[in-house]
């Protein structure tokens, strides 16, 4: 293979040299640049990176053989011109023996090239036999190589031989190869082999293109082997080789057609594509210019040549750009990069999506080998985004600063195409700043969401507690109403009855003293009862004397010893009424619980004021209870206590263990309303 490559290269150089200098370059250059050079370099490229790959080998072989054939042909032409074999047209008459040998070798090689093209196309993408029949058919084609040897001795005219062994195969075989590829792709699709099946559209397009080109050749025969159309035909004739070369190189890089690993430098691929495209362009332009010069006045010819060159220039530029984009990916200007990322940021509320997007954006925009992005800061889970395989070697790192806070980091590898410039540095820095802002926004959004959730939760809780408070108020009203009607009113009715009784007794002249004493005692009882009801509605001492007085007074009336600890200052000052009432309600409710449930020997009440909050604690040494008990049942009036505490913006904590007593502790917001002098 190495020999083929070297000899191909040498022959190419030789043929190019003599072809362009000594022969009419109108006939030589288009072919050289249009077909031989692309094939040879594409093959060389493929073979260099995947020496064992059949496609690469075949392509290189095609290129080399084309070069060898061309070198032979041109050498023969040069000899016949220079040494005076005296024949202008090698194919016009029966050649002498030397000529025959040269010609036959050249014909054999050309035929081999055509067969190789068929094999190359028909066995894409991996270059190996897959389906029954392929091997037999393609191998049998080599038999055609006998034709150039067999036909001349059999008396066939040299021109006809040329047509049979060179002209027709060259014209039709690429189309044949493409057709075979279509069949192969169809079979692959049926067999579920996706790699080959994917080639179906390309194969079909190739088959149509190549067969159309071959059909066009039919008309060329009647045009003669000369003139403008001949040259155009030559140029177009190179088309299969150009297309095949381009496709193979491109596919090698893009889809690892040759098993070429992705780490291969894209610049090499790009260079190869560039060479192929520009060779073809040069060939095209020169052919047109030279052809025009032959048939038209020189001024007009130059004009045509310039015009044609100008016309083909956009095509070439477009092909070059296409190659560049395909190889390097979409190149973005710094501005485009910022705009694109900015658009991404507008929808950035999920860091786990943003991180890979940023990584991809940086990698694509700056052609970085790899990028790793970590987003997230205090209070946010880290989101990672990585593109490209992280390799050891030079690396850059940008922390995402927002204020004094690091909200993530961008790490990246070197550029694939060139060095990392200060401009690139600025771009990354700007993106890092934008990303930091985005992370900050995401964090704000998250905080907002959690606050909204909290507010909603509080609202629900508030509604529930409001409902409970209203309910508690209603039932308390009913209780008071019952005590007034069933208790006090009945007592008063009884009192009236007893007074009437006393009057009757007086009318009869009886002794009313005992009756009146009884009435007075009853009246005292009604007063006591009334006082108790009124106290239950609202203890007046709380309003008149404040919390500590109300709490100690409440404590004094308890049947168990209650110790009240309170700061001296607290006795002198008054807190907002609702706070005092809530605190008192809490204490009296807690004491009621102690009496009802705790079986305590002593109770300690602590009242303290500090940091704008009133702390109320009622602790007993009673039986206690399991914490789950209250959580599940909400019993013991604890829900009411909690509602009451939270209604004034306070917090309630109840700690209890069976056998270890219960502590009710509340913290209520308290600004001092008034403070007595002493």
């Amino acid at each position, binding site marked *: 293979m190495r020999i083929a490559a070297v000899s191909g290269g040498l022959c190419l150089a030789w043929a190019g040299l003599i072809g362009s200098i000594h022969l009419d370059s109108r006939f030589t250059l288009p072919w050289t640049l249009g077909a031989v050079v692309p094939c040879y370099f594409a093959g060389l490229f493929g073979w260099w990176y995947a020496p064992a790959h059949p496609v690469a080998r075949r392509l290189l072989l095609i290129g080399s053989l084309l070069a060898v054939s061309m070198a032979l042909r041109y050498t023969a032409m040069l000899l016949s011109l220079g040494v005076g074999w005296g024949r202008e047209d090698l194919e016009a008459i029966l050649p002498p023996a030397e000529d025959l040998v040269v010609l036959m070798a050249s014909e054999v090689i050309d035929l081999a090239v055509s067969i190789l093209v068929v094999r190359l196309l028909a066995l894409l993408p991996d270059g190996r036999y897959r389906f029954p029949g392929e091997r037999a058919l393609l191998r049998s084609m080599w038999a055609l190589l006998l034709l150039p040897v067999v036909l001349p001795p059999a008396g066939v005219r040299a021109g006809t031989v040329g047509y049979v062994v060179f002209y027709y195969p060259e014209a039709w075989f690429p189309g044949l190869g493409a057709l075979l590829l279509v069949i192969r792709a169809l079979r692959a699709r049926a067999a579920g082999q996706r790699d080959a099946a994917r080639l179906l559209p390309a194969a079909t397009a190739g088959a149509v293109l190549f067969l159309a080109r071959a059909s066009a050749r039919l008309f060329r025969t009647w045009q003669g082997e000369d003139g403008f159309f001949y040259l155009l035909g030559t140029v177009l004739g190179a088309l299969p080789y150009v297309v095949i070369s381009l496709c193979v190189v491109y596919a090698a890089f893009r889809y690892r057609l040759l098993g070429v690993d992705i780490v291969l430098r894209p610049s090499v691929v790009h260079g190869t594509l560039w060479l192929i495209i520009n060779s073809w362009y040069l060939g095209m332009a020169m052919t047109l210019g030279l052809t025009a010069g032959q048939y038209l006045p020189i001024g007009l010819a130059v004009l045509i040549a310039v015009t044609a060159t100008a016309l083909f220039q956009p095509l070439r530029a477009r092909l070059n750009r296409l190659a560049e984009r395909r190889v390097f990916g979409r190149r973005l200007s710094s501005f485009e990069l910022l705009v694109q990322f900015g658009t991404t940021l507008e929808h950035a509320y999920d860091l786990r999506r943003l991180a890979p997007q940023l990584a991809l954006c940086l990698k694509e925009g700056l052609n970085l080998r790899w990028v790793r992005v970590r987003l997230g800061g205090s209070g946010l889970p880290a989101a990672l985004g990585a593109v490209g395989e992280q390799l050891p070697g030079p690396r850059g790192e940008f922390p995402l600063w927002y204020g004094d806070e690091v909200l993530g980091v961008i790490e990246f590898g070197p550029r694939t195409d060139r060095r990392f410039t200060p401009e690139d540095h600025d771009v990354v820095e700007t993106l890092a700043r934008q990303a930091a802002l985005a992370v900050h926004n995401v964090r704000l959004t998250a905080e907002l969401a959690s606050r909204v959730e909290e507010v909603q939760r509080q609202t629900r809780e508030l509604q529930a507690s409001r409902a409970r408070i209203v309910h508690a108020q209603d039932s308390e009203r009913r209780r008071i109403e019952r005590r007034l009607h069933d208790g006090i009113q009945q007592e008063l009715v009884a009192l009236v009855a007893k007074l009437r009784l006393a009057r009757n007794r007086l009318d009869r002249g009886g002794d009313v003293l005992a009756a009146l004493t009884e009435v*007075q005692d009853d*009246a*005292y009882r009604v*007063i*006591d009862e009334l*006082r108790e009801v009124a106290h239950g509605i609202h203890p*007046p*001492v709380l*309003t*008149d*004397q404040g919390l500590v*007085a*109300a709490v*100690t*007074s409440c*404590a*004094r*009336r*308890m*049947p*168990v*010893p*209650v*110790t*009240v*600890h*309170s700061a*001296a200052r607290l006795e002198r000052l008054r807190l907002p009424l609702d706070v005092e009432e809530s605190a008192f309600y809490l204490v009296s409710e807690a004491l009621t619980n102690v009496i009802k449930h705790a079986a305590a020997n002593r109770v300690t009440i602590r009242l303290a004021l500090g940091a704008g909050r009133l702390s109320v604690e009622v602790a007993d040494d009673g039986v206690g209870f399991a914490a789950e008990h209250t959580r599940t049942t909400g019993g013991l009036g604890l829900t009411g206590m909690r509602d009451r505490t939270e209604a004034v913006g306070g917090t309630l904590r109840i700690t209890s263990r069976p056998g270890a007593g219960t502590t009710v502790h509340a913290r209520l917001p308290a600004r001092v309303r008034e403070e007595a002098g002493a």
Partner: protein
Amino acid sequence: MPDPLRVVIAEDHYLVREGTRRLLEDTGDVQVLAAVGTAGELLDAVARLRPDVVIADIRMPPGHHTEGITAAHAIRAAHPGIGVVMLSQHANEHYAFDLFRRGTDGLAYLLKERIGELDELLRALREVAAGRSVVDPRIVEVLMGSHARTADAPLAALTRRELDVLRHMAQGKTNRSIAESLTLSESTIEKHVNSTFAKLGLAEEPQLHRRVSAVLAYLRHAPAPGPEGPAASGGV
């Protein structure tokens, strides 16, 4: 028959006011100079009529809180010779503490229903007119029956015997009758009384005032009741 006590009544409730007036005038021992409905009118009447005693409701317009106590303090400050009997619907010791905040002389705290116990009321009127002090038995009862303690109770420093003596003092007993109750000598009681005064920080006060302050200290910080049980009446 002593001269009738000259009394001014302050009570915002018309029926109670007139009822009280009739009750008192009915006894013949009391001359009601005026019956008014507000604290302001009361102070006017006192300044004008210079009664011996004032009977005032604790709740009066405009605030219906403790206007009576404020008026009582004002009267005592302006006219130390005029006694004040506070009639209160609150059986709550803190109102009594409030009334006695600046000293107990010439002040009485009675529950309103004591109007029905005319003898008690008359006794209180005479006590305060004489510059002494009365606390409603019901209040004493609450304090005696109380289990409550405050953390800085000065009574914690007293011995058991001193507490006994103090408890009897709270029931308005003299040293002699305390001595009889506890079957101790009067000098022993005197010793206990003095050491109690010293421990309560009252050593520098005048004799009578000290007794009242000691009792109030007791009332405020009363310990668990002794074997004798609650007192029935609290004339000091």
